[in-house]
């Protein structure tokens, strides 16, 4: 899951980014309004955390410009403006949620997760496919009663695939949403990590859930039919 934080206060931006990264999310940051708008327009983010009062370009303008271009990204506004009119204006302008500063990072993460679930039409906080369960809050992965230990990247990959259960997910999508720019990998890395993940999920002979679509990508689903 790839997020963008557009926030001019470096302390808050850095702390928020680190916390979300530690929650196995890919996080990009922008310190100014114009920089944030450019990043949001150029990259397929799942969620944007957007401050309203920004240098160079106001957060409300960013919100309106993204929605005017039919950008479907989920936007969580984080603002020190706590007035009802401010919240109504932001929500009416296309924000999906509104969080007033100061806030606890845990709440910000919970709201991000809620938006991610909404992105992929999930309501259960524990993501399930057949006997595979992924608990994003406790960051636990189980296959039936077996707990599976995954690396951070494998976890992000599985979470992304579970969010898009039954959908055909291209390698490019996986690369953009799961891999950090600084990871230094290539597109083959996607195949490699898919292989690692398959191996861990089927370590005790369980049914394979990650299916390859040649030349297209991968699908996570219960039955291959």
């Amino acid at each position, binding site marked *: 899951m790839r997020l963008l934080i557009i926030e001019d206060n470096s*302390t*808050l931006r850095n*702390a928020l980014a680190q916390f979300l990264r*530690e929650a196995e999310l890919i996080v990009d940051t922008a310190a100014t309004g114009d920089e944030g708008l450019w990043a949001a327009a150029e990259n397929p983010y799942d969620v944007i955390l957007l401050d309203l009062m*920004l*240098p160079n370009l106001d957060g409300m303008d960013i919100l309106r410009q993204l929605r005017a271009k039919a950008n479907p990204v989920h936007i969580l506004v984080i603002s*020190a403006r706590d007035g009802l009119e401010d919240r109504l204006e932001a929500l009416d302008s296309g924000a999906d949620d509104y969080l007033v*500063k100061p806030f606890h990072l845990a709440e910000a993460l919970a709201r991000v997760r809620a938006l991610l679930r909404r992105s992929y039409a999930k309501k259960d906080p524990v993501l399930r496919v057949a006997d595979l369960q992924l608990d994003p809050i406790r960051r636990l992965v189980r296959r039936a009663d077996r707990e599976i230990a995954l690396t951070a990247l494998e976890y992000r990959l599985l979470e992304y695939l579970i969010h898009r259960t039954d959908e055909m997910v291209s390698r490019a999508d996986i690369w953009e949403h799961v891999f950090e720019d600084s990871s230094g990998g290539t597109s083959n890395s996607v195949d490699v990590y898919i292989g690692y993940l398959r191996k861990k999920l089927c370590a005790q002979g369980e049914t394979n859930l990650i299916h390859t679509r040649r030349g297209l990508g991968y699908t996570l689903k219960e039955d291959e039919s």
Partner: protein
Amino acid sequence: MKRRSIRRSLLMRCGIGVGVLMCLLATGTYFQVRSGLYEEMDQSVRQAAALLSNQVEYEDGKIIFEWQEGTGESGHLLSSVMFQYWNETTGEITRSPALKSADLPRFLGRNDGQQIREIRMPADGHQARAIGMRVYPFILPEEMEKMRISGNLINPREISHILVVARDTTPVHQVLSRIRWILGSGTFFTLLIGYFLGEWAVRSSLRPIHELAHQVHARTGNPDDQTLKLPGDLPSELTGLVENFEALLGRVAVIRERERDFIRHAAHELRTPIAGLLATTDLALSKPRGASEYAAQLETCGKTAHELTELVKRLTALSRIGKSAPPAKLESIDLAVLMDDCLERFSPAFQHRELRLLRVIPASPIRALGDPALCRIVLNNLLDNAASYAPVGTEIQIRMESSNGQTKVAISNFSEDFPANLERLFEPLFRHDASRHDSGTHLGIGLTLSLDVTRAMGGSLTVSRVADKRIEFVLGLPSAAA
């Protein structure tokens, strides 16, 4: 503390005024009537005396009083008076019958003239008006002829008489007493009725004030800054008061709005660093970490605490705006040198935002009278604003000049949006745009402080629009001798 009552004051003043007027009128009327009655009384006494003086006749060698023979048409006049004659030659006394044996006081006016005076009647002691005069007997021509023939010619002046005629003034006093009662009771009842009418008039006149007070009272419980719902028939005397009150409330509303702005902005400015602080502590506590990580996070917390301290200092400075500034220590300053110092500090910010600097400064020193520390505050604020609000890649112009005893420093920059009323830029906490143009703590107090300290130095700070959508601040200070 007991308050002075307008109603009571009006009643008292009107009462005293009307009372004094009524008393004066009554007294004047009384004395006018009294004077008239006495005049009439004196006139009747004079008439009686004139009549009686003509009724003394010398005939056949003796004095004859005609009234004793029948007074004729004058009977009524003579019956209302008492009189007495004194023969100055023989000392013989002749009295009116009513006097019986009593004597009237004997008197004359100066130089044997007439005199009217107040006397007491000998019989009953009543007050009376009396006239004293000298009279000479009348001698008929036939009697004169007889005296001439007999060679015994008598000069009437040798047989003079003193006549005193008195008239009882009791009826006049009774009339005057009645008039006094009528005037006194009339004045009293007039004042009494006047009091009730005045009370009614004052109450009805003061009713709009009560209604206004009710409106004001009702408004005190209303949190909104609404205007008063004035009664349609508001008297003109209250219109000015209401207008001034409305103006006062307007000013209060502006102050309240500024306070609300202050609280809103202060809360907003505090929220972001607090959010950073909270986020950093949340992050530190979210899982066990190494010492170096904790140290980094604590350092961040410390940095944020310093930011908050700086912010609180600015807020404290804001609370001081409007209070009298300490007297500035004026001395000769080279503003060009001071400007160079300040520009050095902002050089990185200008470079970061690719701002070009155009300086138009004369070669000779630009000396002005000012406080170096205060001038530095003003220049720093103006440069800070230019560095923050000028669009990236634009030009900032700095001009300095001295003329007519004034030294001016003008700093202008391109600005895409500024308020219609530029003077608002000097208002505390005023920030025109919704977005912050830089990430610093621009709280909207820098220009307010700059204006305050400029005035403390006896200078001026103005803002205006100049060509090409530029905004220009001009600091004016008295020139100093080179």
